[in-house]
């Protein structure tokens, strides 16, 4: 053993120096009811709403309902050890979680404790989980883009840093994949990402974490998971805890991306504990303040003014719909709170258009200001192209009977849909997105068969990487489209080398 007894005793003395011998005066109450993650206690006359309370067995609770005779407490942890007649102590503190740089790269629970088996997190900072959102004068309008690396989103529903963009869709339509791909694309962007998994299966979260690890994204990501086996109060506080951790970085002038996956489950958890606390149920049995639950959470996403360091927190809340019904209670609430939504269509998903972003119903209310100029130039007509394509799609089967203008529109539309397809976990840098969209909107793809577009794209990127890196760099550095003649020249040069596949040649001959 290398540790000496003297060293240990010196250490103990040092720690004991902090001990003050004083009378402890504590306000207490008596537990009268325990069950379903909720306790009621008599006494505690001066308890504050949201105050942390300590039970006899060391478990903490949060005062939620202050009533004339008793206090309703949600138990944050194991409530099996609490008995009727136990005492509950006031702590005088509001619920806090640890925050700090040491959290990055870790997987934690809703209380900020590590659950990844990598040992303790050494951070002395804590932040209250409930905090008022920055006010009007503390903010500035959203101006910098947050590149998701997904063509369909960066071109049609651009997201800015500090924005709140909802990802909404049925189960199994790729909502989480969009969020994870966005996190993957923040590599080397000086962003901190926080992925808050609320009620997600532990196995799913495990595979999400391995994906992030595989692509090196855990270096700048915190994963906060409140699994389905945790009591409802922890699911309820998880997003607030995540937001508190994000705010720490935002206030230091950093850029933060936070994903709440998903708020439907948080609403369910809150409904559960509200009903057990005997609050009156409202629509769909949600309590009266369910709107405020989400609005105060999402309001904490902000782009801070330059005076406060100019940091930002971008929120990507996820909401699950049932059979595409966006008029249910939680979806309408969250749609009205956020600055736009990405709607994922299950029909599109199953027909192979992935990501299944529905261009017609997806919007971004502030993102347009945050798009780089080059992207605006090439993506301006995209939405219109898609809309007219979907309108005419029904006539597509008439084929050659249609007039040329209609045929051209159908052609362009089919290619647009094809270009916007993107495989999983392969985010594209913005300059390459601009490049392929440039080829699309300038008609270079009209001659290419639909089956060849994916190959065309990858070969085009390889060609530009090899011979025209300067043009790509120019887009990155200036944000503007390079000289059109130069672009055209480069694309022409590529077309000389591009070989259409054989099956398509045959097809063309038959036509």
């Amino acid at each position, binding site marked *: 053993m290398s540790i000496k007894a003297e060293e240990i005793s010196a250490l*103990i003395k040092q*720690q*004991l120096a*902090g*001990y003050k*011998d004083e*009378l*402890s*005066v*504590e*306000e*207490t*109450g008596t537990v009268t009811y325990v069950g379903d993650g909720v306790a009621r206690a*008599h*006494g*505690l*006359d001066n308890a504050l709403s949201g105050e942390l309370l300590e039970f006899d067995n060391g478990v903490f609770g949060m005062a939620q309902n202050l009533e*004339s*005779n008793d206090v309703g407490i949600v138990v944050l942890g194991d409530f099996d050890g609490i008995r009727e007649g136990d*005492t509950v*102590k006031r702590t005088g503190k509001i619920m806090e979680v640890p925050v700090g740089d040491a959290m990055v790269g870790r997987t934690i629970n809703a209380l900020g404790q590590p659950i990844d088996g990598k040992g303790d997190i050494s951070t002395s900072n804590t932040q209250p989980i409930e905090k008022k959102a920055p006010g009007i004068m503390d903010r500035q309008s959203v101006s910098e883009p947050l590149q998701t690396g997904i063509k369909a989103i960066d071109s049609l529903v651009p997201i800015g840093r500090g924005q709140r963009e909802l990802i909404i869709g049925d189960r199994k339509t790729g909502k989480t994949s969009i969020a994870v791909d966005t996190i993957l694309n923040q590599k080397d962007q000086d962003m901190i990402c926080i992925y808050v998994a609320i009620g997600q299966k532990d196995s799913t979260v495990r595979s999400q974490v391995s994906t992030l690890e595989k692509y090196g994204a855990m270096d700048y990501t915190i994963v906060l998971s409140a699994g389905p086996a945790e009591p409802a109060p922890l699911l309820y506080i998880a997003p607030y805890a995540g937001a508190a951790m994000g705010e720490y970085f935002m206030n230091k002038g950093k850029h933060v991306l936070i994903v709440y996956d998903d708020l439907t489950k948080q609403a369910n958890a809150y409904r559960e504990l509200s009903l057990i606390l005997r609050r009156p149920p409202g629509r769909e049995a949600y309590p009266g303040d369910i709107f405020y639950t989400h609005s105060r959470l999402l309001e904490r996403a902000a782009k801070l003014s330059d005076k406060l360091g100019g940091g930002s927190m971008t929120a990507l809340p996820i909401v699950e719909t049932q059979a595409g019904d966006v008029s249910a209670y939680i979806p309408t609430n969250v749609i009205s709170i956020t600055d736009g939504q990405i709607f994922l269509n299950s029909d599109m998903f199953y027909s192979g258009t992935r990501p299944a972003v529905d261009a017609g119903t997806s919007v971004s209310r502030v993102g347009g200001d945050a798009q780089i100029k080059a992207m605006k130039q090439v993506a301006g007509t995209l939405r219109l192209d898609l809309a007219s394509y979907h309108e005419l799609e029904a006539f597509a089967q008439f084929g050659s009977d249609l007039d040329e203008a209609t045929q051209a529109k159908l052609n362009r539309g089919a290619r647009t849909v094809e270009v916007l397809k993107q495989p999983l976990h392969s985010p594209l840098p913005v300059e390459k997105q601009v490049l392929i969209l440039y080829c699309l909107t300038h008609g270079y793809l009209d001659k290419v068969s639909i089956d060849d577009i994916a190959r065309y794209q990858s070969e085009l990127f390889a060609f530009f990487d090899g011979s025209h890196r300067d043009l790509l760099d120019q887009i990155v550095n200036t944000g503007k489209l390079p000289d059109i003649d130069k672009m055209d020249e480069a694309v022409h040069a590529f077309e000389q080398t591009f070989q259409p596949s054989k099956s398509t040649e045959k097809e063309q001959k038959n036509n």
Partner: protein
Amino acid sequence: MLDKITFAKRYSKALFEVLKADGQLDSGYAELKQIEQIFNDNANLSQVLADVSFPESKKQELIKPLIDNADSKYIKNLLKVLVGAGRVDALQAIVEHFEALYDEENKIVHANVISAVPLTDDQKNNLSQTFAKRVNADRVIFNCKVDQSIIGGLVVKSSNVIFDGSVKTKISNIKKLLLN
């Protein structure tokens, strides 16, 4: 039906106010304590009186001597009302809340004192004077208990507040300090 505590709070407050208006607070309080004692001694009494399957006439018979012996007309009426409403089970809670109101009026504080060794009268006097000053009361009534598990020092429990100066708590605080 109102829950027991809300019910008891309302009735005790009403009783307190009428007794105070008539200047019968002290005698009323003593009487209530006696009635409570009767109910405490006969554990089944309140249960039987609140039982709906027990015939009404028998209930009246049972309660009659109690009512007859009560001096205050208000307390007589209270007993009649409680029996009529089938809420005799709330009587003890009513007395408890009445006591709280009475204590507040007269600045009396009840406290449970836990010590490791029995306290001498001198110690008790000192403690009651200091404690009365601390909680701003005229009179302190102690209910002393001996519990060796606190090792040393004193624990005073009074209306939802614990003043804990026990050695046991201090040791556990030191333990927490060292482990963190």
